[in-house]
């Protein structure tokens, strides 16, 4: 049976891209919160949680909400506050709104899982933010997104819509990994050199755990690994699912499919810009440490924002990002 490609509305392409982005963001937030909780230093909780605010560029947002910077407030800000556009409930709400528009395209199973997941997250009880309940909550949220990802992998029709979905997922994941790496910049360490070394090691391990890369890293790293090895792993190891390089490579692949399989020629400009990002990833990490990393990551984030905008103007036409997404993606 010969099937011709069915057309994809620009609005639906945009919806798929953003649905995937929001869900990926939810998973990463849950990871970050989990790790922050697990590795918060006794007596310095506020500092640990402040780093979370900093890497999401949410300092001003928190102030706008009239919230003092305390561990409890930050947890609420991200897990309960639907008015905070970067919170888990708000991101999930946005994902579901997109999914609702996409219901003719996505599978019934995708919709149903998201619908139920959304309802559960909207009903998070403040008591779930305390003590050991928080880690359980984060795991449930992670698993909610992972269930979505699995159902999508197994049921979503793989025509051009799927490529846009994957583009959204990969660009968000790349962006989140750069933010995660940047957490180090926001965590100041004091004390003797040996004390600092130990604390830093713990912090880098936490970063690896947040990215689900701790054990994989151990397999590839020397016993005497240093910060540069962790950074290189998270940025450039193309075997690691959340590395920026792997995400960028995936984006390249999906864009190429859109160009060759669906004749979308406007992919050329995006692909060119993506090559610049790849080039940045080839820079030797050693040179960036210890002081150049933050600026470098800033640059990487800006390039990814550019790529997102190019995708938007090329395919979504009336591309007007929502205010909140602008705040997140451009507030670097």
């Amino acid at each position, binding site marked *: 049976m010969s099937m011709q490609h*069915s*057309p*994809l*509305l*620009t*609005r*639906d*392409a945009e919806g798929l891209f953003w649905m995937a982005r929001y869900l990926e963001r939810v998973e990463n937030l849950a990871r970050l919160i989990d790790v922050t909780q697990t590795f918060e230093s006794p007596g310095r909780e506020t500092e640990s949680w402040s780093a979370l605010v900093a890497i999401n560029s949410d300092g001003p947002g928190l102030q706008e909400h009239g919230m003092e910077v305390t561990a409890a407030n930050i947890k609420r800000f991200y897990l309960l506050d639907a008015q905070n556009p970067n919170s888990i409930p708000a991101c999930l709400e946005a994902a579901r*709104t997109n999914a*609702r*528009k996409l*219901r*003719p395209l996505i599978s*019934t199973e995708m*919709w*149903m899982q998201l*619908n*139920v997941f959304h309802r559960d997250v909207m009903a998070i009880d403040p008591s779930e933010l305390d003590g050991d309940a928080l880690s359980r909550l984060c795991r449930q949220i992670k698993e909610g997104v992972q269930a979505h990802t699995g159902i999508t992998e197994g049921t979503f029709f793989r025509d*051009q819509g799927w490529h*846009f979905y994957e583009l959204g997922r990969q660009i968000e994941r790349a962006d989140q990994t750069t933010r995660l790496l940047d957490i180090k910049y926001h965590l100041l360490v004091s004390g003797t050199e040996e004390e600092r070394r130990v604390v830093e090691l713990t912090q880098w391990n936490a970063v690896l755990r947040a990215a689900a890369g701790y054990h994989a890293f151990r397999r590839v790293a020397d016993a005497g690994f240093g910060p540069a090895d962790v950074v290189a792993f998270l940025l450039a190891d193309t075997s690691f699912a959340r590395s920026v390089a792997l995400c960028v490579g995936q984006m390249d692949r999906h864009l190429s499919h*859109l160009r060759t399989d*669906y*004749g*979308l020629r406007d992919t050329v400009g995006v692909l060119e810009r993506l090559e610049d990002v790849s080039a940045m990833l080839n820079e030797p990490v050693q040179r960036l440490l210890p002081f150049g990393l933050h600026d470098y990551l800033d640059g990487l984030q800006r390039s990814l924002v550019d790529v997102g905008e190019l995708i938007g103007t090329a*395919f979504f*036409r*009336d591309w007007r990002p929502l205010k909140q997404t602008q705040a997140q993606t451009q507030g670097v």
Partner: protein
Amino acid sequence: MVRAALHNQVPMTADPFDSYDSGAYYCELTARANDGGAAALVRQRLSAIGLDALRARAQLAERDLFNLGITFTVYSEAAAIDRILPFDCVPRIIPAADWAVLERGVTQRVQALNLFLADIYNGRRITRDGIIPAALVYGNANYRPEMEGFPVRFGTYVHICGIDVVRDHNGMFSVLEDNARTPSGVSYVVENRHLMLRAFPDLVAGMKLRPVDDYGRRLRSAMDEIAPEGVGDPQVVLLSPGIYNSAYFEHVFLAREMGVPLVEGLDLTVEDDKVWMRTTGGLRRVHTIYRRIADDFLDPSVFRPDSLLGVRGLIGAWRRGNVTLANAVGTGVADDKAVYAYMPRIIKYYLDQDAILPNVETHICGEPEGLAFTLANMDKLVVKPVGESGGYGITVGPRASVAELAAARALLVADPANWISQPMINLSVAPTLTDAGLRARHLDLRPFAITGRDTWVLPGGLSRVALKEGSLIVNSSQGGGSKDTWVLAE
């Protein structure tokens, strides 16, 4: 081990039919003779399941609907709330012979509606012949002068039609209302069947039922048929007002079943009097639009200028023959409740046939005799506004208080042409699961007909049931639910 009690009382599962009483009404399940024993079998199976299990399973089934998002949206002051159309697990059964009559009756009615529309927008024979008052037609708010002299393919204006049918205490069918604009509810017909098969396979087992799955394919092929002439592979779309529309789920359902894009006004644009949709690969021609947007909102350059739902220039493209709209513009004049009163005469006039499905006796308050009769019998009649839908504005005389009757009378006198009245029909009932067990609740039936070149009627239709005791209002917006409707194959 010590027994807890000397007499080990096994709790008996209550027979759900123990206290069922359909009173003076015609019961769709228990007053059966011509169904080959199907209803009796269902009854037996329901009894075997027992009331508790029935309740538990019905609850799970409804939760399923909610999780699946098979919902309609109700708007309160502050929030949009997703609600399911309550699903009653006791099916409504229509024997093959009854269905044959309904099917012919609906087909006849759709044919007459289309002939009527073709006539009033072209030759105006029927008003010249004095069959129906000209003022009622051409002065009607839903009459669209834009349609005059405009040819439509196969003479079909009403491509999708829902005809509301009721049954009186003798089991006689009659038509209560025609829905020739953008009737909704068909998605629930299909989803209710799927739910029935999932949640109550033991009720359905072995029953020879006419399938309902074919609706999407039939609709798609009708939409292909009516595309502008000469288009080989027409692009069909479904035009929806978007996620905030209460029937959005149905729009999703139909787009998916037809395999066509679900578009909103902003996805379409008109250039060179042709309609295009915005795709990742650029603009792409659209040939047939199944629109679920009312006439008024279709094209801000022709109708309501403030409409953001429609597409500027759409009517122009349509008049140039470059796109087909389903249903056509201006069909609202045919399903008006005052025009409804003339339907038996309209059928006779065009088809030279008697109506297979009779009308409910209707008094047109815009006419002096009708008004006088209605005013004199307010307490016995059902008074309805002509242009409303959704069951709003209705006063059921025999059930109304003195104050409600007075209020209805005041409205009626202020604008008689806006009202009709009908005798109260003792709508048939069916056993329906309630907190008190199975109870008799009133219901109606909305069969759906699709017309391209020919008319096809979906076997069955949407059985809407008034869940409130004694209520005759079955609309979902007013506490109605629905039942799976089984048309027996033999």
